[in-house]
């Protein structure tokens, strides 16, 4: 698609950073993100089986991402209309959905140089700015939105100015709306997607 190549390509190129178990001891936001990048290569090593990659990714998501917060944001206004059971079902499925999607991408894409370039405050959140250097010399801006004061948790990733959280919310909102506003339709589709993917 002309015009979104940068965003699309960079989304996937940037994901490779997020793939290692690490202690949540880091007090420094930049170090937190920097370490993520530095250790990425280990998990991307040749011959890492898919199951092992997924397991590490699952652990990473649980440790370093604010999954309940992200999940609630992604469901948007439908979070309030969902029953507690639906909310729990959704969070579980959503986490697994992310693990499957991104660990597969990690397997497909090699490591690319990445460096942290700065840090700023966005209200109560901390934003760590970084860039990925593509093989052709282009640099893609990746912004990491962190909550907490150390240990930090990632709440959103902006790639080339595009929010991953917002993109996911838009997609899920579309699915729910096109199924009469029923959250269970989204849950069913997630379940089906995960069972097909295997």
């Amino acid at each position, binding site marked *: 698609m002309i015009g979104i190549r940068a965003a699309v390509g960079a989304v996937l190129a940037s994901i490779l950073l997020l793939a290692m178990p690490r202690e949540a001891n880091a007090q420094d936001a930049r170090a937190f993100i920097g370490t993520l990048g530095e250790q990425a290569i280990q998990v991307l090593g040749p011959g890492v089986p898919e199951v092992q990659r997924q397991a590490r990714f699952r652990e990473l998501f649980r440790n370093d991402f604010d999954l309940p917060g992200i999940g609630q*944001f992604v469901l948007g206004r439908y979070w309030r209309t969902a029953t507690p059971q639906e909310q729990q079902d959704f969070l579980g499925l959503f986490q697994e959905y992310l693990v499957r999607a991104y660990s597969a991408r990690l397997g497909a894409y090699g490591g690319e140089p990445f460096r942290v370039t700065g840090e700023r405050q966005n209200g109560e959140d901390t934003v760590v700015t970084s860039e990925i250097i593509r093989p052709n010399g282009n640099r893609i801006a990746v912004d990491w939105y962190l909550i907490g004061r150390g240990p930090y948790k990632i709440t959103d990733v902006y790639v080339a*100015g595009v929010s991953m959280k917002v993109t996911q919310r838009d997609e899920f909102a579309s699915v729910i709306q096109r199924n009469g506003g029923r959250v269970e339709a989204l849950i069913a589709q997630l379940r089906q997607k995960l069972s097909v993917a295997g």
Partner: protein
Amino acid sequence: MSVCSPLILSSLVAVGLAVAGCGAPGAPRPGQTAAAEDFNDPYEDANRSVFGFNQAVDQNVLVPVAKAYRTVLPPPVRQAVHNFLTNLDGPVVFANDVLQGQVGLAGNTIVRLALNTTIGIAGLFDVATQVGVPYHSNDLGVTLATWGFVEGPYIIVPVLGPSNPRDIVGKIGDGFADPGNYVAGEHHLLLAVIARSATSGIDERSRNIESLADIERTALDYYATIRSLYRQRRQAQIRHEKSDLPNPNPVQGGDSAPDASLSYSIAK
């Protein structure tokens, strides 16, 4: 035949911007009012049909051609083609930098044009990036946005993909303003214009085959995902968050992080 006549061009602009300013036509379906406002996609049904058509064209024509392009030309040659085409777009980027009052960016563009056209041998080599003058893209759609025109409803254009009235007007305007197209027009070389456009499309497609395939594979609603990516990307460009530069500085002022609760129908 002069398609470039000022009358036709201004009529196109007027119609395009009028559509952009319009609200959603017809009665919204029950429960769909909020949806139309959220996504600014009142023509969603028609768009999904065109999107389906585009997917078919993509799978049956564009991707095979792009893959053949990859097979036939080695990466350095393809990179040179990409650099050449990007350099050709330089004048239009410069014009829009100026129209937006972006003096620094305009300077970058001029330096890039000069370096890459001379030392870079007609744009084949991107020496400017190597000496620290980064690339940024710009177009009339962004300029119109900075002048206050809202994006208008989301529209999927046959073959070309996602767009909106303001960006369509922008693309047409840029096409007329492009000196390469102008020179080709003067010499009645319509074929050159078409070849450039087609090569640009194939080049672009060949650079994102895996990325888009991956997104399609994992998406529950691929149409909605593309719509979100496109609209966010355009908004980021308009906020002058340049994807190819580190630490984008919000030139227009204000925080560079968008407020996610803002309605998407507000472009700026």
